């Protein structure tokens, strides 16, 4: 069984299997992805990089579509920073 990958979501460690996307990691950690214009918490909708609800700050870069980005060991993911 391949070793799980560890990433952090808002500072908290999350273990995911290889091939997992950042969006999945965020959902596993119980976190939403972003806050909408009116302050609603939002999570992935389309799963295919079109709706932009899954946007998060990944390793310091904003507005990354997390559903199309594979987790890599040590990745730092932050939400609510659009």
């Amino acid at each position: 069984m391949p070793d799980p990958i560890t990433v952090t979501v808002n500072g908290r460690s999350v273990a995911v299997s290889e091939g997992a996307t950042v969006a999945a990691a965020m959902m596993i950690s119980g976190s939403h992805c972003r806050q909408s214009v009116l302050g609603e918490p939002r999570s992935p909708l389309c799963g295919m990089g079109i709706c932009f609800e899954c946007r998060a700050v990944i390793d310091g870069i904003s507005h990354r579509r997390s559903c199309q980005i594979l987790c890599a060991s040590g990745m730092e993911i932050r939400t609510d920073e659009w």
Partner: protein
Amino acid sequence: MSAAAYDVIIVGAGIVGAACADECARHGMRVRVVDQEMVGGGATAAGMGHIVVMDDSEAQFALTRYSQRLWQELRSELPDDVEYEQCGTIWVAADDEEMDEVRRKQLYYSLREVPVEVLTATDLECLEPNLRCAMAGGLLVPEDGVLYPPCAARFLMERARSRGASLDLGVPVAEIGKGRVRLANGTEFSAGTIVNAAGAWSPALTPGIDVKKRKGHLVITDRYPGFVRHQLVELGYLKSAHSSTTDSVAFNVQPRRTGQVLIGSSRQYGVESKDVDHAIVSRMLERAQEYMPALAHTSAIRVWTGFRAATPDKLPLIGAWPQDSTLYLATGHEGLGITTSLASARLLVDQLTGRRSAIPSEPYLPSRAASMEHAHA
């Protein structure tokens, strides 16, 4: 077809037409506004919404300053979605030569009681950390502002309608003049006065108006709150706005209230196509990144184009059209339509009612072209 009698029919429901409708209605005139599409759908929808005093000429200064103060007076009544922000402009100087220009402008504005502040390189770094280091400094004009034009136009039009103005949208105007406006579907209206506020389309309706299309491009990013705090314009912008023959780009960046960064600007001549011009967008974005390298990694979500209505002397046409006693013009505002819309409307109505204007109106009269020709003859 039915014909109705109005005091004024305004052709064009952009920000200038809407401002004129608002002002005319305020003076108790019976107003009808016609537009081929929607309120604020032309250059109004495409432009930056920068409210800025300019010092190109006394006449340009007078009009922009007068109008900027009218916007300030109006601000408390503007709804939220107009997004009026008095964020100020910083004219950015990249070298010592441009700093000389900063000092010249500072003197010019100070003499005319426009608050300004000269910024050193350090000041600039503090105020706008995302600007490239090693700028020479700049000039802060704190009373300049920004707003979102389509909603501003809508607000003015709604106010006009609340005072009885009526609005016809969605049918192109076929012909105007001699007290009549005929729409493409045959409907005709008559009025004592017709105002051509059709911007880039104004010469099509009134042959002989020397207004030419000057195409622009804008790019907007996703949300990066705090990335830029003031409208930033390079001093070279003035060279760009001045040129009447070559395509040009200039660094011009605006913070939107949404946190998005609006990036301009470009000017092109003799282009009819609305398509995005890749070559010029490329140049414009390269220029923007020269001034703000951090823009490189932002997410750009939309690009669009628009046509400014440009006159040869860079001043708008506000007033009676010499060849038709029923026809007035309120057009040719180039890149200053948002800024000068309110003052243009005042000047227009002053002329319709025979009142004295707050600023001299001669520089903007359509008849000046004739007298200019005459002077050259």
